[in-house]
């Protein structure tokens, strides 16, 4: 004869098994993998509303940043004096960039040491704005020094320069490092953008 405790456990276990079977059916046949993938969106009520609040905040922050950037540029770098210097890499088989120094009218305005991650970003097509500043209208000279590893892994330092005329509009200059296949050497140029 079974004890009451055992009978209680039997009933409880039968209940659990039924629950388990229901869950099993749900897991095996009910939910598709897509539904599983969407679970985070419909998990609990609190995270969902929190997520919505976070998205809304992100939007407002971006909007605010946009307004601030516009104001900052107008205040600090108005177009009639603005000059920006960018750096780009094309291929880079003959030169591994470490750092760049930019001199404008014989004054050092930027000195940037690149991380591996940033070099990878340049190699993938990113263009780094090395300097943003102001100059008066008229003639100016830009000189850039690039340091890194040249062909055969040797220390390598090269320069490039450009004389340019600053007009009323913003001036964009691009320091470009590319490979000169014919000479098996890197090439450093400065391009003036209109």
């Amino acid at each position, binding site marked *: 004869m079974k*004890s009451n*405790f*055992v009978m209680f*456990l039997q009933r*409880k*276990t039968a209940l*659990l*098994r039924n629950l*388990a*079977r229901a869950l*099993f059916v749900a*897991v095996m*046949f009910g939910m*598709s*993998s*897509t*539904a*599983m*993938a*969407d*679970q*985070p969106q419909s998990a*609990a009520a*609190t*995270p969902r509303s*929190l*997520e919505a*609040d*976070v*998205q809304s*905040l*992100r939007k*407002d*922050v*971006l909007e*605010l*940043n*946009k*307004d*601030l*950037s*516009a*104001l900052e540029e107008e*205040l600090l770098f108005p177009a009639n004096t603005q000059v*920006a210097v960018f750096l*780009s890499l094309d291929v880079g088989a003959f030169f591994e960039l470490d750092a760049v120094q930019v001199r404008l009218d014989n004054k050092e305005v930027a000195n940037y040491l690149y991380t591996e*991650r*940033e070099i*990878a*970003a*340049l190699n*993938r*097509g*990113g*263009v*780094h*704005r090395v300097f943003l500043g102001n100059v008066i209208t008229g003639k100016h000279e830009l000189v850039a020094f690039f340091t890194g590893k040249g062909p055969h892994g040797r220390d390598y330092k090269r320069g490039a320069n450009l004389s340019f005329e600053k007009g009323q509009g913003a001036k*964009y200059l*691009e320091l470009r490092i590319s490979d000169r296949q014919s000479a098996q050497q890197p090439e450093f140029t400065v391009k003036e*953008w209109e």
Partner: protein
Amino acid sequence: MKSRVTLGLLIGFAFFVGNVDAARRSLLLNPELPPPGPGALRAVAVRDLPYGDALFYFYAGDYETALERLQFADSAGRLSHHRDDAKLLIGGIELSRGDYIEAGKTFSEVLDHPNVPDNVKDRAHFYLGKTFFRRGFDAQAIDNLSAATHSTLPTDFDAERRMLLAESLLSVGRDADAVAILENWDTSSVWRAYAEFNLGVGLVRSGKFDQGAKILDGLGSREANSAESLTLRDQANVALGYALVQQHRSTEALAILARVRADGPQATRALLGAGWAASDAGNVREALAPWLELRGRDLLDPAVQESYLAVPYGYARLGAQAQAIAAYEQALSEFAAETSRLDQSIDAIRRGALAQAIEASAQTKGSVLAIDVAKVPAGRYLYRLLARDEFQAALQNWRDLSDVAKRLDLHGNDIEAYAELIAYRRQKFQSQLPSDLAALDRMNLDALVQRRTELEARVAEADDHADLAALGTPRQRAIWGELEHMETVIDRAGDASDPEIEDIAERVDFLKGYLYWELSDGFKSRVWSARKRLRDVNHLLRDSTRSAALVKAARSAVPAHIESLSGRLDAIRPKLESVHARASQLRDRELASVSELAVRELEAEKARIRDYVLEARYSLATLYDRASAPVPPQGGPAP
């Protein structure tokens, strides 16, 4: 007895399904992987530098800065050549952050433009399809993923497109179309492996066992080289093995489960399944070997937990009641200790230990937040939680919000500096303007312009009439004038026969001739120099005229501009304060949510153990009941 097999299958199958899903989503949400978009952009030469600048931050993993730069450049009209690329990039970042609705809007905007090139169309359809897939809109996902077929997608994107399309098709019941996607698809692609796994499991779930088993078998027997492929192969074998056990095809199940690597993360599930397969075939003694092997392993593993019930179950089936009772009691003791440790951990988390560990980890630099869970009491339970996407997404949100709050702090400083700058400019302009205007009046530009015009006329006249003296040096012009004056005096004297006067006239003629020769030599060069100097004067006058016009225009424009900047700044200030307060509040809520997630995870763990405890108690009670009955024990000898 079958109910136990079912329970075993339930736990094993439910866990591997959950884990694979997590594994797949981890791949999609891995912060180390850039969100979709950049691969196809590498081939595009950058034609707008601000776009390249945003790409730089994007590739460097700083998505917030990339997004800010893109949106600012777009609003300033500086992305004329990369408008569509920029939209795709913005949408890709939104998608990676889980902002599906905004991402969907962004991609739809790209497709709404007329004359969209095929490569842009393909990418927009791919992302839009992915967005619909993530939101669970399968029909729209299928439409878009099927439309991205101009062969312009990079290999990885196309592989992911196929996988998502196959899963969407499976979701709407188009099994044959889903399976057809696998045809002509490179078997080395890890995306194909994910697609095969999900299709195989989906088909088995929907009752199409043979079809699903064939796909899982193909994946499970394929050569794999990468860690990811090996894990997927093991998961396919575990899935198929459990499905075969469910079909009571134990011999086949054992063969499939034997393919699972003994040192891989699926090994415990394979051992548990192998035990159930042997048990189902009536070979209980064989089943005990893998189950006993599991008992020595980490009790955090659900397969190990289940082995604590499986072992005494095996003993009981063999009639070894004493061992069975001892094993159940050991299981109850282990489960009780585990529950107690879980309680400790839950209590510590509720008292803020996890939040503190997360705050401490934020001090260390790096793209991945390394939380030192050892600082949380009984923190070992949290390692599995850390690997979950939901937890990682919440952590990432918390980290983003912390960064946002820091940036907003800096913006607060900037705003104060800008306000000072504006005030300084206002004051400077007001004090400077009167003196500038007075200097302008003194300059009398009109008179200077008039003098320049007269000089131009004089040079032209000298050139036309070969007036050599006009362009001579002041000394030459003085001597020439003196000699002409002397000639006049000689003429006035009238006596040409006077030898003295004649001598003087001859000397004057000689000197005039000499000076004429000197003035004519280099005359054209002097005309050219004079004109060049006048051109320089023209440039200077033009600059001066422009400056004068600017100063005059500035008299009204500058105060208006300064007031406009001041107004904009005043409008930004309250927005900044409001956003800053919200960011700080959300950051705290997110941290609380992370802790809550951890507690929920541990409570679920406790609930599972509670079920095991109930099962163990029931079985133990049954055994005691039988032992107290006068009937001798049934079954084979104990091992």
